[in-house]
């Protein structure tokens, strides 16, 4: 009915187990909209799309408006500024290992969009000074280092 084991029971082989490491590997095609978004980042630009039907300007960009369910093919160059919609100060990694210097993940609402934004990090500021609704600006990698990745933006930092 749910026989409880301790980690020790397994390590000392009191019960039998099989260890396995999966070797599944992926090469995800970025698709059309995100492919173009990533190319934009390499060029130092944040690209969004506009739905000509409802007028919504969104980022991340998409080839269709999920509200109107129509194609959305109008590309818009967006400013690299916005506001902190929400943030966290995170002391652990994905496998729950503790880190000394916390990451500050945030949802950045990008200016000139219809309440749209994306996940990124806050930097160049003390964790205790970050606030919701704070205005921020992207800090980019040097053009020579950019490779068409979300990390071409190093982080967002408070707008002075």
């Amino acid at each position, binding site marked *: 009915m749910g026989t409880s084991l301790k980690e020790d029971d397994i390590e000392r082989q009191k*019960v*039998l187990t099989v260890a396995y490491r*999966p070797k599944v590997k*992926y090469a995800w095609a*970025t698709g*059309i909209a995100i492919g*173009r978004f990533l*190319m934009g980042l390499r060029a130092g630009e944040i690209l969004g799309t506009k739905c000509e039907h409802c007028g919504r300007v969104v980022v991340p960009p998409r080839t269709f408006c999920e509200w109107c369910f129509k194609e959305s093919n109008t590309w818009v160059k967006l400013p690299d500024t916005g506001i902190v919609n929400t943030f966290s100060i995170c002391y652990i990694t994905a496998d729950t290992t503790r880190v000394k210097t916390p990451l500050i993940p945030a949802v950045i609402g990008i200016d000139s969009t219809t309440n749209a934004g994306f996940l990124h990090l806050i930097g160049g500021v003390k964790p205790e000074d970050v606030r919701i609704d704070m205005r921020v600006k992207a800090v980019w990698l040097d053009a020579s280092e950019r490779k*068409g990745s979300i990390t071409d933006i190093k982080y967002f930092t408070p707008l002075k």
Partner: protein
Amino acid sequence: MDMSSELKVEGDFPIHFRYTAGLAGERFLREIKDNGRLVAARCSKCELNYLPPRIYCERCMSKLEDYVTIASVGTVDTFTVCKQDSDGKDLPQPATVALVRFPSAHGGLVHKVKGEVAIGDKVRVVFREKSKRTGSILDIEHFEKIA
């Protein structure tokens, strides 16, 4: 089409696994490891001896608690000669693999075979040397054809 649609992002699952043998699996693998014998779980209601054993009968969902010993000589139900490993790479040598049925058991065993076999051949289970057994299905070395 835009070149950007050709971009690929590579990735994997950064996790691994550890599976318990479970209640019936523990009993089965321990019997092989300690005593070099096969056991099945008996459903007295359906009159079936499940091999490998389980804690339940998949037909009537009774809880199974009685174990019976199964003689380790059986018959090849079907076989194949597998050329690739689990990752899709060529095996150093093709492996003959068979599903073997045992006279008093419901189910059977799937394992490698030493040498060539045909459907209907009689084979016996060859266990690894006792000192080398680890409590795994690989404590069975292979099936061997009985001349």
